[in-house]
Every structure is written in C-alpha cells, then in structure tokens.
C-alpha cells in the first residue's frame, strides 16, 4: 500500500518522470554502447566534419565520429557515478546518523572528522590524488566517492540533530525505546528525503567531477569519457579559434548537462513523492 502510494505520487510528478526516463535512456546507451556505435579509434576519413546523416554529431580533429565517442563516454560516466555514490553512502550515512544523535565523545570525534574532510578543498585534492594514484577509472571513482561522503554525512547529521530535538523523539526516549530503534525507525525514515536528494546530487557531482578531472587531463587516457573529448576539443582550440568546430564540444557538454539534470530531476521527484507535505 505504502509503495503503491509512492509510485502513484512519483508518476504524477511529470518532471521526476522525465528525469527517470532520461536516466534510463542514458543507462541503456551505456549498456548497449557496443551495439549502437563501433569503438572510435585510429583516424577517420574526414576531419572536422559538421553534423550530417552519417555523423550525427560531426567528426573531431582526427576524423572520428563524435556521437560514437559520446556513447562510449556514457559508459565511463555511469560506472564512475554509481560507484562513487555507493562509496559515499556507505561511509556518509552511518557517520552522519551517529554524530547527529550521539552527543558524547564518539559524536564529537565523527563530527570533527566530517569538518576536516569538508575543509579539504575537494577539486584541488581530487586533482592531486588523481595525479598520485594514476588515472584508472576505478581510482577516479573511489577518489570521488571518498571525498564526497562528508556532504552526505553533514546533511544526515544536520537533519538528525533537528529531528532528535523534536518532541516525538523525546517521547520515544521517555518510553525507554532503545537508541538503535529510535535511530533506525524514527529518525532514519524521516531522513529519507534529504538523504536521497543528496545521493542523487552526489551522483550528479560525480559525473561533473570525473568530466572535470578528464578535462584537466587527469582522467584515464585509455577510455573515452565526456571530459576527455572536451579536453581534446579545448587543446585543439575548437572554442575560440578559427575554424570553429562547435559540434565537437557542444554535443558532448550537452550530454553531461542532460545526464546531470536528469539525475537532479529524479532526485526531486523521489523527494516530493516521499514527502507527504509536498506530495499533493
């Protein structure tokens, strides 16, 4: 019954549904990449060709099909974002819950660790770590996940603090209900909204970070990723120099934006459907 209300509420929200469909399409592109386009390598016949029936997104400086590059790049982006969000959730949610609820030493220690991690400048640190650990896609995903957990922990912690000040939690405590039951039954369920929204944000940020790192030349050079396509376009002066092959960077960046937007819409849709205050 509960699930059915959630699905009904979610489907009624058009933007959330658009996000969900968009995410599914990109997931399908990533999974079926080999069937959609052949892996772009070597040199193509005509360089810097504008979009046409044969090359939907035109060709790049080596004459390779930009559409094929974007499709194969989707695989990398999906892999990185799912893995990063998993890592961030496993570390972030429990530590946020505990530090928000426990006022003792343990809470203070976790809180300090969250603070310190939030203090570390994310992108610069990612750049340095990516330079150290070497540019495999798995390493990049791990780095993004490990550095993304504090924001999830902070959201969890702040909401936990707010909720645990509420009267029904006081009442539960007075009734002698154990901390664990209060945490998981009364607090965690009420956190679902903010936490899920933050997880979709992490999902979106992970792609932005991966694309950013590859764009700065710190990604995996042996794999196609959206960021590395943009790096090649930027390095060859495709943006401000003449000739100006706008299709080289435009379609690729548009895919990054669509991907991130779809995840954000999906997150909002889930949040609204879960939250009885905004459901109707």
């Amino acid at each position, binding site marked *: 019954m509960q699930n059915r209300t959630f699905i009904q509420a979610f489907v009624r929200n058009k*933007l959330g549904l658009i996000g969900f469909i968009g995410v599914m399409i990109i997931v399908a592109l990533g999974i079926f990449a080999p069937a959609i386009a052949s892996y772009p390598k070597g040199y193509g016949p005509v360089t810097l060709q504008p979009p046409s029936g044969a090359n939907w997104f035109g060709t790049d400086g080596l004459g390779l099909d930009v559409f094929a590059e974007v499709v194969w790049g989707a695989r990398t982006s999906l892999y990185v974002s799912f893995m990063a969000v998993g890592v961030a959730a496993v570390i972030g949610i429990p530590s946020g819950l505990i530090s928000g609820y426990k*006022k003792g030493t343990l809470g203070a220690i976790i809180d*300090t660790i969250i*603070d*310190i991690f*939030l*203090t*570390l*400048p*994310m*992108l*610069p*640190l990612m*750049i*340095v*770590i990516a*330079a*150290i650990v*070497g540019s495999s896609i798995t390493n990049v995903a791990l780095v993004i996940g490990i550095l993304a957990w504090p924001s999830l922990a902070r959201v969890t912690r*702040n909401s936990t*603090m*707010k909720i645990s*000040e509420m009267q029904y939690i006081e009442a539960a405590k007075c009734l002698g209900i154990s901390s664990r039951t209060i945490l998981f039954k009364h607090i965690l369920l009420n956190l679902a909204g903010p936490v899920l929204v933050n997880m979709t*944000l992490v999902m*979106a940020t992970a792609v*932005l970070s991966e*694309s*950013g790192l590859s*764009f*700065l030349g710190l990604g995996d050079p042996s794999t196609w990723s959206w960021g590395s396509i*943009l790096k090649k376009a*930027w390095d060859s002066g495709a*943006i*401000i120099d003449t000739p*100006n092959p*706008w299709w080289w*960077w*435009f379609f690729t*960046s*548009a895919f*990054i*934006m669509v991907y*991130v*937007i779809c995840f*954000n*819409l999906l997150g*909002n849709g889930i949040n609204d459907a879960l939250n009885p*205050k905004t459901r109707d």
Partner: protein
Amino acid sequence: MGNYIIRRILKGLLTIFVSATIAFFIIRLMPADPVTLLIDPKMGPEVKQEMMHQFGLDKSIGEQYVIFIQQGLTGNLGISFKTREPVMDVLMQKLPWTLLLLSIVVTLMLAIGIPIGMLAAKKRNSWFDKFISVFIVMGISIFIPFLSFALLYIFSYRLGLLPSGGAYTPPPGHGIAYIINVGKHAILPALTLFVGNVATIILYTRNSMNEVLKEDYIRTAFSKGWNEKYVVRTHALKNAMIPTITVSGLIIGSMVGGAVMTETVYGWPGVGRLIFDSVSALDFPVLQGAFIILAVAVVTVNIVTDLVVAWLDPRIKLGG
C-alpha cells in the same frame, strides 16, 4: 556562548593542523621526483645532491614534517620549487585575484538569490515559481567548462565583445583604465561561477521558506490578522535563512579553492589556476601552502556560519 566560541575556535585550529598534515603526506606520495624534472639531465649528481639539500629533500620524511610544522607556525611556507620565491609571496600574488572573483560572485548571488528564492516561495506554484524551478535544476547541474565554452563562443568568438582569457590586457593601464581592463576580463569568469551558485542559494531559500510558511506558528500569526509582509519579515525570515546561511558558508569555503576549473579555462591568475599549474610542475611547497590557505579560509567561514546559525536558532544546542 563564550565557552562555545572558544571550543569552536580550538576545533578550527585542529582542523587546520590536520588538513596541513594530510596535505603534507598526500603530496609526498606523488610519484615523480621534482628535482629530476627541475634540473638539466646533463648536470652531475653532485648538483642534484646540492639542490635536494637546498630544498630540504635529503632529510627523512619525519624531519621534513617537523621543519614544515615549525616553519608553518611562523608563517613561513617554504620556497617554491619552480620559481624559487617564498611560497607565501606566490600565494599573496594570486590570492587577491581569487578573492576579487569570489567577492563579486558572493555579493551577486546573495543579493539576487535570496529575494528571488523568497518571491518564488511566496508565489508558490505560479508561473514564476515554475520558471525558477527550471532555472534551479539547470543551474545546479551546470558543467563549468560547458558554460565557459558557450560564453566564450558567444561573447568572445562570435561577438568579439569580451576577452577570451587572462586578468587584463597588457599594458594594464592605471586608475579607471585599469579597473575597466580587469573588469572586462572578470565578467565571463564571474558569470560562470555565478550561475551555479545563485541557483543553489535560490533553491535553499525557496525550499526552507516553503517549509517555514507551513509551520503552525505562521498560521497562528496569520490568524491574528497580521499582513503577509509583517509575518514573513518578523516570523518566517529568521528561521528560513538558516539553511541558506549554512550553504553560503559551504559555497564560499569551497570557492576559494573550487574555482580551479573556471580559473584554468579563462587563464585567471588566482589560487585555483596556481593549484592546477603546481600539480603539473610538482611544486610541493606551493601546493601545501595553497591547501593551508584554503583550510584557513574554510574554517573561518564555517565558524562564522555556525555562530550565526546558533544565534538564529536556539533550538540547535550547539554547546551540548
């Protein structure tokens, strides 16, 4: 409250210390040896030895760390491998450029974002609110290089109105001419950073205002017959601002170092660009210094935000 402030500052100092330590050790893990990159391979091993000694790289990691902390406490962040200048001087040259960009962006994002967020909450479900929702989703999803490329393509390549990079066109000029010169160069990077951040501010302001306006005490205030403006100003605003303030703190803190992408694309000579260049050049001392500056900035902003939040919402018993 006084006790709380002291504890908060001590925690801030600890945070800076730990960040500096993490920065020191992470940077030491970088694979390449900077001296090998710096010197001509034709030079003999004794020259290399001399350089290692000069930069203190012949000592053990432990000794290097002790020296790093001792010097750091006196404000000495070492010597840049690349330019041989004191790191503090290098940072002080770059920091004003980052702060210039930051202050433009933060001023605009708060001045424009908060009123728009409040208006969207007041006119809930109107066409304005819907338009703002679309803008928010686009804004928080922005990929910095995409926006930069699009702006450069339109304003620099097509229209030829604005410069494509750098902080000024040489000669920089004096007085008003200098301000105009720099201002023209700052427009695109500032706009790039503004779009994403203002969307975040609008989002938080609108959502928390929506939440607060549904509270019982607001309904009570309305039922007393007070007008909307009065209720929003005296009852809702203070509580609704809490999430906005928290997120502003996070934005400011991250922007001191988070402008790497923007500064790199536009060739803006700030701390972000410096970090990117220092990674390629394996300039450890500059990287460490930059991380410490960033840590100090974030800690300071966090303390200020926490104090403001504690002052606004006594329910959050921060001292407890």
